[in-house]
């Protein structure tokens, strides 16, 4: 698969008090970012556990972006600092599993930094494009988004039947 056709699916966990607001602002400013980025609002990046990142990769995300407040600017004082430590530990764990650690990245964004958010999203997408699709979902390689959805649906139905 070439870089031209591969649209990475990036899961972006955005803090309600900063990055999520900046994504909102990016929308108001008509700044565009790749559609493969799916944003999940979180009350604070300190709420995110290592399992969330692992499950995201396990379930086929090509990259995971964690966007928290600027250091020193966390609404809950130091949630983003804890998040960074967990992200660092998870990156090491992913390396142990044979997954490139650059698929998981944390950035610090304030509510006013819409342009910066869009920039880091583009950087993340570029990085993941260079790395290629998540290597643990080979069955989806070369498929369109529609085909992927159909395959995922069939897979879920089979699991339900087997239970």
């Amino acid at each position, binding site marked *: 698969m070439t870089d031209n056709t591969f649209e990475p699916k990036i899961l972006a966990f955005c803090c309600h008090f900063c990055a999520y607001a900046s994504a909102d602002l990016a929308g108001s400013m008509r700044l565009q970012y790749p559609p493969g980025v799916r944003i999940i609002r979180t009350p604070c990046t300190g709420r995110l556990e290592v*399992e969330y990142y*692992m*499950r995201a990769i396990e379930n086929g995300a090509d990259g995971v972006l964690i966007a928290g407040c600027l250091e020193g600017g966390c609404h809950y004082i130091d949630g983003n600092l804890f998040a960074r430590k967990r992200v660092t530990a998870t990156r090491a764990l992913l390396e142990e*599993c044979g997954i490139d650690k650059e698929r998981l990245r944390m950035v610090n964004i304030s509510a006013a930094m819409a342009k910066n958010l869009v920039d880091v999203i583009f950087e993340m997408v570029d990085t993941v494009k260079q790395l290629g699709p998540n290597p*643990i979902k080979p069955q989806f390689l070369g498929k369109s988004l529609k085909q992927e959805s159909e395959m995922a649906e069939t897979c879920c139905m089979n699991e339900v039947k087997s239970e």
Partner: protein
Amino acid sequence: MIVAQRKSIPELQDIIKEKKNILVLGCGTCVTVCLAGGEREVSIISSALRIASKKAGEAIKVNELTIERQCDNVFIETAADEIKKCDAVLSLGCGAGVQAIAERYPDKPVYAGLDTAFLGILESRGVWTEKCAQCGACVLADFGGICPVTRCAKHMLNGPCGGSRIERCEISPNQPCAWQLIYKRLSDIGETDKLKKIYPAKNWSKSLDGGSRTIIREDHRI
């Protein structure tokens, strides 16, 4: 409490190789408190194993379960169904937990997923330190509650040695001299007289030297 650390993912992959249906079994007691083998760690390690095995082109099934205590038959029974269904158990309990399950299920491979390290305490968040060597003959009463057997690098009962430098042990600048701590503690509680006693060589027959130990309480036996 017992303090343990997880093995690396490549080590775990090597341990469970050729097994297709693994049960990662956590323990809700000591290893949960030391963040090595509780419910959360079971989830993380299982996920990591699934990712690593898929990356290696193998398809293995990894189930997750955490029981209250792995070193107790009453609690092991609660995992009976899951253990019977799997090819092998990867226990995230301490060494005692792994062996308790292996004894209970003689036909089932039971592997250790953790390196059991020591008996210690939580010093501060994320920092655990060793406090007891389980020597079988406690001397804490004579040393102000600070164990020279565990905390002195030379296990000296008549210290300090010549390697004590500015309250630190010669093995590392981060290692406090246990004998400095003992002297300070005994001074604080007015028991420095105890240091006049010369200890004879320690009787290690009550430690691991005599093989694995057993304690029998006849008054509690049925």
